């Protein structure tokens, strides 16, 4: 969790640095009265690097992904809940109660 977080912060800071250098580049172009067609090459590389780092951090920081298939090994339904609203009490446990001698103390 710690390393993913640091990588995420690094990725965001690289993106911020790329944005700042693009703004500076535009300022430079305005002085030189040239057209702004593409940001310079190093900014593009920086952007791609920042993208990769941020995506990696976003996938690892939140934790384990859970399966969404309803028929996967973890998600498949094994049994229905007992119908507790219709529960009846005259079953065979009436004769078995010898071992359970408990009291509620107050």
């Amino acid at each position, binding site marked *: 969790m710690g390393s993913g977080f640091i990588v995420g912060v690094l990725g965001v800071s690289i993106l911020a640095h790329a944005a700042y250098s693009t703004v500076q580049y535009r300022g430079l172009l305005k002085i030189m009265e040239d057209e702004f067609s593409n940001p310079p090459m190093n900014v593009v590389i920086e952007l791609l690097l920042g993208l990769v780092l941020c995506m990696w951090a976003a996938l690892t920081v939140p934790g384990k992904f859970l399966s969404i*298939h*309803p*028929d*996967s*090994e*973890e*998600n*498949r*339904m*094994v*049994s*229905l*809940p*007992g*119908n*507790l*609203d*219709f*529960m*009846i*009490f*005259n079953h065979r*446990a*009436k004769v078995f*109660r010898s071992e*359970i001698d*408990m*009291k*509620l*103390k*107050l």
Partner: protein
Amino acid sequence: MVTKTEETQLNRLENQVDNGGGGAWEYLCLVKKLKVRRPDKVLRHGLSILNDPKKRSALGPDVWTLYEQVSIAAMDCQCLDVAKDCIKVLQKQFPESKRVGRLEGILLEAKGLWAEAEKAYSSLLEDNPLDPVLHKRRVAIAKAQGNFPTAIEWLNKYLETFMADHDAWRELAEIYVSLQMYKQAAFCYEELILSQPTVPLYHLAYADVLYTLGGVDNILLAKKYYASTIDLTGGKNTKALFGICLCSSAIAQLTKGRNKEDKESPELQSLAAAALEKDYKQRAPAKLLLLTSALKSLKTS
């Protein structure tokens, strides 16, 4: 709906709590959430928490739900004095509560005093005529007395008002199956599948009822529903795999005399048989021989 992870978690917690590790409160919460019926364990571990004043105060306001849960578990284990004490504590805390009134009615049921319980529920119903739990307890009284026609009548009346209650539909289907009224049970299961199509166990129960009804059309439909169960459980439901093999052999037997137009391909049966053998090899290799001989007799008959 108990999924496989939840089941393993429940078993693990149960083992842990039974062998003296902590985590009793977690276990009780999980049992309450999954709505499983484990009265002896709930009673034992619930009382161990409730009898300890330190643990009781650690729970805060959740202690009252624990009292309710333990009282119902006590009634299930027939420790009626424990149940009575819990209800007394709850009454002291919440004097005019209808939830506690319901619990008292359930205690009368557990004691076997059906007439008094019926009277208690009717008086509670006068104040709240639309309380679903009270209606359901009346059905449970009729069921406990063995009076199935009355139970069916009450349940049908309840379902006219509360048509979306799938627990009640399930209960009605089970009562019909126990009375062997399979066509009505099939109707109830169809309602359940309509409202919750992704629950494979309803498909399985419906297929079972269809297979029991018999007749080529019903068995063909049963085979389709067994197949949909296998689809929804990822192939892990052994009962559905057996169902497919039995349906295919039953269809083959029933249509023996008819002309040999090509039915559905026999792949489904062979695939199901192969899946069953793989499963048995993994989980119960001692019985594999029994299984293969049974499957062979199904195919040839």
